[in-house]
């Protein structure tokens, strides 16, 4: 009995080592190494912001803003996650009129709410991250507005759920910086 137990352990261990070898080879894609530079694990807390300054108002601009307000109203009335998420996706798909600075904030709010809506779903975190991460890329300038900080906090929460501590820490730190800048501006 003891001898059989030792044999089965060796079989399992051998299988595990083989699996480990195959998995490691599969994970060692040189292109992946190129894509992830040495700082990939370090939180990126860079923040660049810009003021929101509207151009001359247009009827198209007003129609867009009112359309987004209607979308939020539909989402408020939705009974389930799917209906709410569908409404918010329609909002993000609305064509944005040229030079409508307010659209940047409204789209951030839509994406943030969609991310918060999807987060409770098992697959929702990854979808929400795919949506918010590019919009809040550290390389991009964000509108100096509370909406940017709210979106960054949501991104941090999503990253925490996904186990991506570097992204979470960077997002939270950036949110704090945006709010610090905003407070300074409001106190002027």
């Amino acid at each position, binding site marked *: 009995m003891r001898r059989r137990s030792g044999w089965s352990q060796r079989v399992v261990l051998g299988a595990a080592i083989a699996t480990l070898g195959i998995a490691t080879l599969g*994970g060692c894609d040189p292109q*992946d190494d190129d894509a992830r530079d040495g700082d990939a694990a370090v*939180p990126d807390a*860079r923040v660049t912001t810009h003021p929101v300054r*509207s151009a001359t108002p247009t009827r198209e601009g007003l129609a867009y803003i009112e359309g987004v307000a209607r979308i939020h109203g539909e989402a408020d009335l939705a009974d389930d996650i799917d209906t709410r998420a569908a409404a918010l996706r329609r909002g993000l798909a609305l064509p944005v009129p040229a030079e409508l600075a*307010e659209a940047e904030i409204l789209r951030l709010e839509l994406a943030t709410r969609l991310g918060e809506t999807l987060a409770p779903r098992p697959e929702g975190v990854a979808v929400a991250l795919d949506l918010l991460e590019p919009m809040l890329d550290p390389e991009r300038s964000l509108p*100096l507005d*509370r909406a940017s900080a709210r979106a960054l906090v949501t991104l941090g929460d999503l990253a925490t759920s996904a186990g991506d501590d570097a992204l979470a820490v960077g997002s939270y730190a950036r949110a*704090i910086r945006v709010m*610090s800048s905003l407070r300074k501006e409001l106190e002027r």
Partner: protein
Amino acid sequence: MTTDHNTRAPGEGNDERSRIAAELRALGEPEFDPVLEAGPFGAWAGDAAVRTAFVLAHPPVLHADGFLRGGLGDVDALGELERHRVWRKVVARSGAAAHPVPSPPTWRATWVAIATAAGLALVPMLSSHRGLQPSTPASRATTAALGVQAREALGGVPGAQDGALAGRIAAEYSSRLASGSASGRGAAVGPGDARGPAVEGER
């Protein structure tokens, strides 16, 4: 035993560690727990914990020249002794993780090894898909603390959101359309709205 945790350059040698230990002793501060150096805190987790703890203690400040200083940007300028102190505070908050975990029974060792090996093998595959990094208790604790701080900062400037914000922007925009003017929307919409110059900050 004289030890410390040098999160910036662990291989710099014993001279630096001895110097830090001597400085700590001269200041009457406790020395570092040797268990932690070989414990669950990897180099990345330690560095991230130091960075986040430093940000919590030193929030970024917007200076008159328009640039943001402090926070993560200044962590790299910390001396070894300062990094050691911040790290020790991190560990003090993570008391549970500071105690060594007892070895599992021998009959379970093989299975633990297999599970660990499988977990390690999955990390690079998952990372290539989603950019995941392994979490430790220390990094999770500091991430959670920073999340609380971010939420507090957000709550410090109340403002409308979602439908309420869109409605307010629509009302303000409609008013401007009626008068045919162009302007920033900060003054008309209220707290939490953008005004002023662009602000840049580097980590």
